[in-house]
């Protein structure tokens, strides 16, 4: 199997400021890979580069061995999809759930629109009747499910998740995390997920990278969290702080 996602010497600048000097890592097939670290360290920027929502970067990003730069927009959309942090901003307010979900199916001429819509609603645990609702008629968690449904309807091989549950309360977070784990097992896609919560990373991810100032300080397996097996001082500090935060401040 080829590597689903490989990032080599990725660098990104905004004007005179280098946000990502030189980032490289690979994600294994079916893996959920976490990105954690300092606020402003470039986690969201990496996802934006991978998805080509930012294009001014240098280096090489490949999905299944194909450079994302060489892919057409259509091909890229079928290979990777992104779920953003904010379930309120990510859906068009005047677009019904049906419209939001059928648009990509039609653009990519997949056919069988109704059957696909029903299937994806069932996959994300929403009643099919919700297809005729508008975003303001849904709770935050339901909107995030719709955003995930829209990302999954093209059956991408890679899902990019930017803090997918940080705007949600813990009970809804639990529903979304369970959903992602179940779908990952069923459909076998690969995930790259940004999170501030190491408990979520421990639950979801196999490995994770700890970032600071645009650089990866260390890549660790999930099992390194509880005993704090990190060696880089910042990674150690972050894990210690997270464990302390969970137990008592």
């Amino acid at each position, binding site marked *: 199997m080829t590597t689903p996602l490989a990032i080599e010497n990725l660098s990104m600048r905004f004007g005179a400021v280098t946000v990502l000097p030189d980032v490289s890592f690979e994600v294994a097939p079916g893996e959920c890979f976490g990105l954690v670290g300092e606020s402003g360290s470039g986690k969201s920027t990496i996802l934006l580069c991978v998805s080509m929502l930012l294009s001014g970067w240098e280096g090489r990003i490949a999905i299944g061995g194909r450079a994302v730069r060489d892919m057409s927009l259509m091909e890229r959309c079928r290979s990777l999809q992104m779920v953003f942090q904010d379930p309120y901003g990510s859906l068009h307010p005047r677009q019904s759930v049906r419209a939001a979900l059928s648009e990509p199916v039609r653009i990519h001429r997949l056919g069988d629109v109704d059957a696909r819509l029903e299937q994806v609603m069932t996959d994300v645990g929403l009643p099919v009747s919700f297809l005729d609702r508008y975003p303001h008629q849904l709770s935050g968690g339901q909107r995030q499910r719709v955003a995930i449904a829209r990302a999954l309807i093209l059956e991408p091989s890679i899902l990019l998740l930017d803090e997918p549950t940080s705007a949600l309360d813990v009970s809804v977070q*639990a529903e979304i995390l*369970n959903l992602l784990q179940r779908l990952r097992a069923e459909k076998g896609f690969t995930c790259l997920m940004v999170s501030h919560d190491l408990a979520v990373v421990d639950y979801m991810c196999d490995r994770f990278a700890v970032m600071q100032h645009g650089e990866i300080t260390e890549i660790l397996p999930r099992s390194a969290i509880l005993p704090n097996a990190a060696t880089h001082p910042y990674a150690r500090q972050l894990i210690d702080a997270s464990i302390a935060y969970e137990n008592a401040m």
Partner: protein
Amino acid sequence: MTTPILEVEDLTIRYRGAPQPAVQGASFTLGRERLGIVGESGSGKSTVGRALMRLLPTAEIGAARMQFGRTDLLTASERQMRALRGNRMSMILQDPKFSLNPIRRCGEQIAEACLAHERMSKRAAKDRALAMLEAVQIRDPQLVYDRYPHQVSGGMGQRIMIAMMLLAGPELVIADEPTSALDVTVRLEVLKILDGLVREKGIGLIMISHDLNLVRNFCDRVLIMYAGRVVETLDAAELDNARHPYTRGLLAAQPRIGGSRDPLPVLERRPEWTRPMEGTA
């Protein structure tokens, strides 16, 4: 508890055109302490916060009492409210980026807030703004000063809002998810700043959050809201002994470091949960 800063009795809020009130019969008092409000998405937490600031143009607010110091928040004129907001009472909003002006540099907006509160030169206002950015742990204040809101990360936007709030020296701060976009180490620093305000300046702090670790460890007391009602009030240290099934369900749904990877328990919501627990104040 010390003399209350804020007293709220039987607060009911209905958005225009909504079939049901978004908040119903909420009562609580706030002293010089940290009061947490937790509850699921849509339970009415932000609505309570905005009602206290009277920032709800499309809603009807009713209450037996809503008293902030000597001001009756139910009858205060819009002019009186304008004088209070951003001065004696401040709110850190849930979506920091939407509360900043998108076409002005972040630092200029803070400096402008300085000038609104105190007479000082432009130069002094800029220095003050830079100092505030440093106080909220922004590593390169000059760089962030010159950026537009869309050019800062989620966590930076939140800290810029906190910096603006700090300038005013308020007596009551309502913080709506103030740290959810921050990494844990910066989060602890920001909480320390808020804590300092309560301890040293004696402010009252309302902390709206769905982070149970945060309210357990950082707050003094916690209100639990469900479907627009306050269903339980607890000492924060007693959170793990909560009795309401909704609160217990929330605690169980939280993943933990080193915990099991089995599906997380999710809430089975029950209609009777909207009734407050007997014996909770």
